[in-house]
Each structure stands twice: as C-alpha cells, then as structure tokens.
C-alpha cells in the first residue's frame, strides 16, 4: 500500500500541542507520523502539496441533521456526507429526530450501513433519549450504545419532565456516553424568534432566553444534587445568561469537564434584527438573540466555558422555507460554511487563535463523543485530515452547495478561509485543488455531489 504524504503545510494538531511547518505521513487508513520526510520516502508516495495551507485533524461536527430515514426530500446521508467533506468535516454526529426517530439499535445500525454505502464521511448516530422522542419513556439506550450510538439526545426538544430527565442522566451515565440536551422549556419556549421589542413589533411569538437557561440550571442541579455525575452537554447555546450558568457550574466542578457546551456559527454572527423582513432563513431554534449575547458567547468560548464548535446543520426544502414565518420550520444548513464563518466570528475578532479554534472543532468534539482515534494526528490514529487555505477570500454561494438544501442566510456573504481538501481514512474525499495532488494514476471520476473524489488505495 502506497502512503500519502501531505507536505510543507502548517500542521496544527491541538491534541499534541503541535503548530509547526512539517509533513504528515498517512499509511493506509492510519496516521504513520508527523514530521520531516526524506526524498526517498516522498518518491514512493502520493504527495499532497499543502504549502501555504493549514493541515489539521479532520473536523468533527457533533450536531447535524441528515434527515434519513423519512425526510429524504431535505437531505440524505449521501448528500449530507458530501456537504460534510466539502466543508472539511471528516466525521459528523447525526441527530435522531428522523421519521421514525433513531430510538432502537436497528436504526442505529441502519445509519452505519447507509454511511458505509456512501463512503464519504464518518457518520456517527446519536440515539434518542426517549422512545419516539416523546419525552415519556426511556428508549433502549443500552442496546443503542452497544450498536454504536455515540451520544443521546432528543434534539429538537428538551426532555421536559424533570423526573424523566433524572432517570435519563443516571441511565446514560451507566453507558459512559454523553446526554446532549436541546435546552428549551416547552411552555416558556416554542416561539418563533427571540422574545423582546422586535418580536413584539413584528407580532411574532417570543422564545425567551429564560426558556433555555431554566433547563440548563435544572439539569445542572439534577446532575449535582442527585450525585449522578453524568456527562452532560448543552447543545447550541444561544443566551449570554446560559454561558454564565455554565461557567459557574464548571467552576463548581473544579474544572471536571463533564458539563460541556457547544456554539453554532449563526448565534455568533447574526442577531434577532435579521428577522424584521420575515425572511424564514433567519428562523432557528434556539432563535437568534442580540449583540450582547454574541459578546457573551465569544467570552465563553475565549475563557473555555464553551469548548465545542458545531453547526446544527438543519436542511429544509425551499417550499417549506417559503411558508409564513410562523409556519416555516426552524433551522439552517451549516456544514459547507462553518469553517469560514467561525474564522469570521472568532479569529477575525481576535477571540481565539487557529490552534484553539481547531481544538474546538477536532479534539474536543472527539472527546465529547468518545471517538478515540479521531481528532488528533497521533501515530496510529485514523487518517482523517483537513487541509485549509486560511487566506482564501471567497463569496458564499448556496447554489454551489453539495447539500440537498439551500436554506442558508449567508448567501453572498464575503468570507476568508476555505477548505481545500478533506481526507477520510487516508482517502482524498474532497479536493478543491487537484493540481496539488501528485501521482494520481487513478482517473478522477466525473463530478459527483462530492466534487472531485479521487480514490487512493
């Protein structure tokens, strides 16, 4: 088997505290070594010229919706995986709010089977906490964990009952997996945009911050006071108040990181003001908030309260997003824009540097989901690598997306930083710049949904 050497890039591997210009050698599906290579080594290998680019462990998104089974008109595991690799993501965790919900081991296995057929990105299923995500009875958590569910969530809604949630925390703790909570009190939340003066003016129902905060605080108390000690993760934090609650809880735990939280790009770049034209591409759950919340979220990312950067990639069809604001579904897609948007939100604002940002997109989500051989470039880890041009300026064009959907509020936005190539299990699954890959004796196949995917084996 010939190896693939990625030469001359700025290798950032946060798990190994590495930020250095060097080569990365991939042997088959594993990382062989990071460091200088000899001419002899290079002569017998495929080469990817990464000069001027950042080379990092493959990006990992712990929060996507691939809509399969049941809502294939929005996205499939095939198109979602194509969008993932086009956005630099080598691994994604897909949420269980499908039809039917991923609430038993058979459906968990189905996700793996479909992902293997597609063979683009690693797709890890997240199992439902409760049967049919109804919030009443626990789903078969143990069987799903055995079948490969990497986490548990009823995403789309919270486990509303405190009694059910305390059971779920305890039971999931037994499996060692993490409970990911969509924090929204169903009676206080449920509105279509942030509660406040703008919602009042627009006559739209409000979804106030407190609906998020009250669930976070409740779960923290359940977990601590009942001495459960489950791993608990807050999905898509939107409120500055939530950041403060999480900061205190993490402090109380003396830095034991079993309470974690994730951000999403739109909550760091857009505010509720975007809703004034009733454009449904700005309707999300949790909703866009205010400038103040954005500042608090950035502070939370800077001081280590929020340690994971996700996308909440949520595809919907055009006809659904053409409905009235109150009737249209929540959510936007994010896989193909996340990297440059995080650059804009975090690096261009001097919130964090590249190594810190990439840690939150590689090593931290890998830990969160228990992906042992991922999120780092340690020898013998999986050969998942993303190559990024940090200087490339470009304009987001939703028409060029590999995703099946187009519901993205960032169309025509100017951004900096672009994913150039995505390598999954040692194979180049996405390559924007074919000339940088040498010795390809296999012909490049016709353009598919995942553009340009030469196979190296």
């Amino acid at each position: 088997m010939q190896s693939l050497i990625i030469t001359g890039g700025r290798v950032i591997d946060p798990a190994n505290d590495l930020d250095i210009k060097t080569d990365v050698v991939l042997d088959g599906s594993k990382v062989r070594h990071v460091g200088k290579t000899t001419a002899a080594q290079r002569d017998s290998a495929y080469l990817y010229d990464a000069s001027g680019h950042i080379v990092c462990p493959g990006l990992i998104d712990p929060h996507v919706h691939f809509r399969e089974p049941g809502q294939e008109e929005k996205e499939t595991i095939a198109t979602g995986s194509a969008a993932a690799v086009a956005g630099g993501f080598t691994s994604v965790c897909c949420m269980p709010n499908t039809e039917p919900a991923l609430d038993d081991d058979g459906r968990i296995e189905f996700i793996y089977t479909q992902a293997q057929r597609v063979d683009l990105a690693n797709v890890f299923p997240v199992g439902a906490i409760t049967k049919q995500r109804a919030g009443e009875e626990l789903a078969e958590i143990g069987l799903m964990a055995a079948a490969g569910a990497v986490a548990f969530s009823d995403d789309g809604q919270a486990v509303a009952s405190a009694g059910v949630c305390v059971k779920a925390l305890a039971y999931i703790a037994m499996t060692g997996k993490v409970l990911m909570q969509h924090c929204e009190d169903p009676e206080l939340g449920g509105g279509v945009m942030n509660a406040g003066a703008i919602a009042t003016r627009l006559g739209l129902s409000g979804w106030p911050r407190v609906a998020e905060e009250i669930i976070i605080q409740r779960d923290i108390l359940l977990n601590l006071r009942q001495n459960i000690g489950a791993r608990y993760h807050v999905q898509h934090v939107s409120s500055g108040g939530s950041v403060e609650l999480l900061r205190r809880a993490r402090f109380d735990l003396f830095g034991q990181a079993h309470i974690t939280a994730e951000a999403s790009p739109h909550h760091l770049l857009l505010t509720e003001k975007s809703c004034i034209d009733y454009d449904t591409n700005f309707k999300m759950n949790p909703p866009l908030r205010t400038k103040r919340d954005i500042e608090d979220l950035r502070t939370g990312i800077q001081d280590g309260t929020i340690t994971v950067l996700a996308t909440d990639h949520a595809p919907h069809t055009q006809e659904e997003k053409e409905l009235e604001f109150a009737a249209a579904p929540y959510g936007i897609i994010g896989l193909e824009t996340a990297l440059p948007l995080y650059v804009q939100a975090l690096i261009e604002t001097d919130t964090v540097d590249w190594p810190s940002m990439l840690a939150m997109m590689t090593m931290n989500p890998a830990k969160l989901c228990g992906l042992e051989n991922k999120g780092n470039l340690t020898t013998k880890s999986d050969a998942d690598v993303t190559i990024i041009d940090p200087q490339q300026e470009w304009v987001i064009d939703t028409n060029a997306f590999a995703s099946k959907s187009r519901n993205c509020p960032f169309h025509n936005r100017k951004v900096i930083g672009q994913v150039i190539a995505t390598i999954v299990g040692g194979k180049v699954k996405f390559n924007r710049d074919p000339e940088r890959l040498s010795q390809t004796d296999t012909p490049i196949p016709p353009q598919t949904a995942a553009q340009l995917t030469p196979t190296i084996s």
Partner: protein
Amino acid sequence: MSKTPEPYCWPHKHLLGLQDLSAEDIRFVLQTAVGFLEVSTRSVKKVPALRGKVVANLFMEDSTRTRSSFTLAASRLSADVIDLSGKGSSISKGETLRDTGRNIEAMGIDAIVCRHPLSGAAVQLSRAVNCSVVNAGDGQHEHPTQGLLDIFTIARQLGRTDFDLTDITVAIVGDITHSRVARSNLYGLLKLGATVVLVGPPTLLPRAFADLGCELSYSLDDVLDRVDVLNMLRIQFERLTSQAFPSVREYATSFGLTTKRLARAKPDVVVMHPGPINRGIELDSQVADGPNSVILSQVSHGLAVRMAVLYLVSGAKHQADLL
C-alpha cells in the same frame, strides 16, 4: 386642493403597515380620504378612478366587516373585485403563500387585499408578486387600514383637520399583545404627535411595548381622567391560547368601560371600538350606544380610508388627480 411648490408624491406601492409610513404619508392618505368621504353622500356613489383595474380580496381568515368594506371601497372606485377566501395558513392548503400570490397575480390583478392569520404574511406576499399588496390584517402584526380609520375618526372628532394630534392622549385598552389594531394605532398615533397609553393586565401587555415609545398602565382607573380617547379593544377569545386573566368577570370589572367609569372620564372623551363588541365585557351597552361613542363613524370612515388606500397604491401620485 392646495398647491405647494414641490407637490408631494405618494411613494408606496404597497400598504403593509403604518410602521413603514412617515407622518407626511399618513396625513396624505387621510387628506385623500376626506375627499372620498363626500362620495358616499352623493346619490350616485361612484367615481371612475380605478375603472378597468382589478382588486383581489385574499382573505385567509374570517372577516365580515373588513372584507365588505374593502369590496365596497373598490366598487365605489369602479374597480372589478374578485373574492378569494380560504381558511388558515397556506400550509393547511398545501400551497405556499408565494404560489398563492403568483397564481392570483397571473389573472391580471392590480392589487391584492390580504387578510391572514399569521404575522408577516402580507410582507412575504409583497415580495413574491409584482402587483400592489394591501395588508388587511396579518396575525398580530399590523392592520394598517384600521389604524388609519381610527386616527381619521379621532382627528375629525377632535377637530384636528390638519391631522396633527399633538397634546392628545389616547388610551388603548385590552388585549394588546395579540392585537394588530393596537400596533397599527400605536405607530400612527405616535407619528402624528399623540401620547399613547396602553392599558391591560400584564398577561396581555408585555413590557416590551414600552420600547415602542408609549406608556403602559395596568389600571384603567388611573388613566381615565387624563385621556382624550378610549379605544377599547375586543377580547379575542379565539387568540387566547392560554389563560390570560382569571375570569371574564374579573376582566370586565377591572378593564370594562362602564357608565360609572365613563362618568369619571373627561366629559367629551371619545369612545372607540374596532368591533365586533363583546357587550358587557369591554363596553357596557349604554356606553357603546351613548353620546361619546363614535363606533359607527369608525365604520363609515373605514370605507373612505380604504378607498383612499386602494386609490393611492394603484398608482395615483397626487391628491389633485382625484375626482
């Protein structure tokens, strides 16, 4: 008809809300309506202003008076009117609002008058079509022609022929949070210089309204003696999804305009209601039918205001084009 050096030009293709209009725009529509008021007193109640034009009424929510008022307004301007009524949002029909709008427009329509149960529907419709859109009430967002006719009535009743409402205090009482009428009134009144006090229980009067530039009060009795206008909103039982007050009896006792309360208000206070009235809840019958009530004038003014609106959005630029 006054001649000014630079004649004012009506700049709007649509009427989606009073939030979008300037004070000058509002005064101009109302002045135009004054002219149309006279048409209703003629023996032949018709002018040829919109002859050959077609107005479509797209009412996706129950309405009797607003729809008949728009229909009559369009007929008096000699427009052809078609009526497209359905119920519920487009989602229940399995068709998007955009498709509905474009299909109507394809019949050669000049203006769509849209009533819809969801906020923002008229705004979204206006983006999908090339013809004019007049918002006849969208969810809890705006009901601009109701706002205009209320302001028209207040100004005429208080002798403000220039439509300047400086030093006038208007109380809007009742279910503010669900009311598009309250919002349109609020924006229009503030732009014309009035002071607005919103009155209701906290469950129907969120504090966020204070950010829109008005006063809030939870006591009708506290504001009674200092207001010039009492606009009593209808309790919209159909919009109350959760309990908003302990009982109808308690609401009526706290916020109903009784003869006893009216006696403590200014003697010439103007009593208004957008209709239909829940008699005995918002208004006692004696008050509704008494000398302070202008409820029926509101209805006849509505016709003139809607004629003015249809006339202006259909492309008339100047008041001088009229009649």
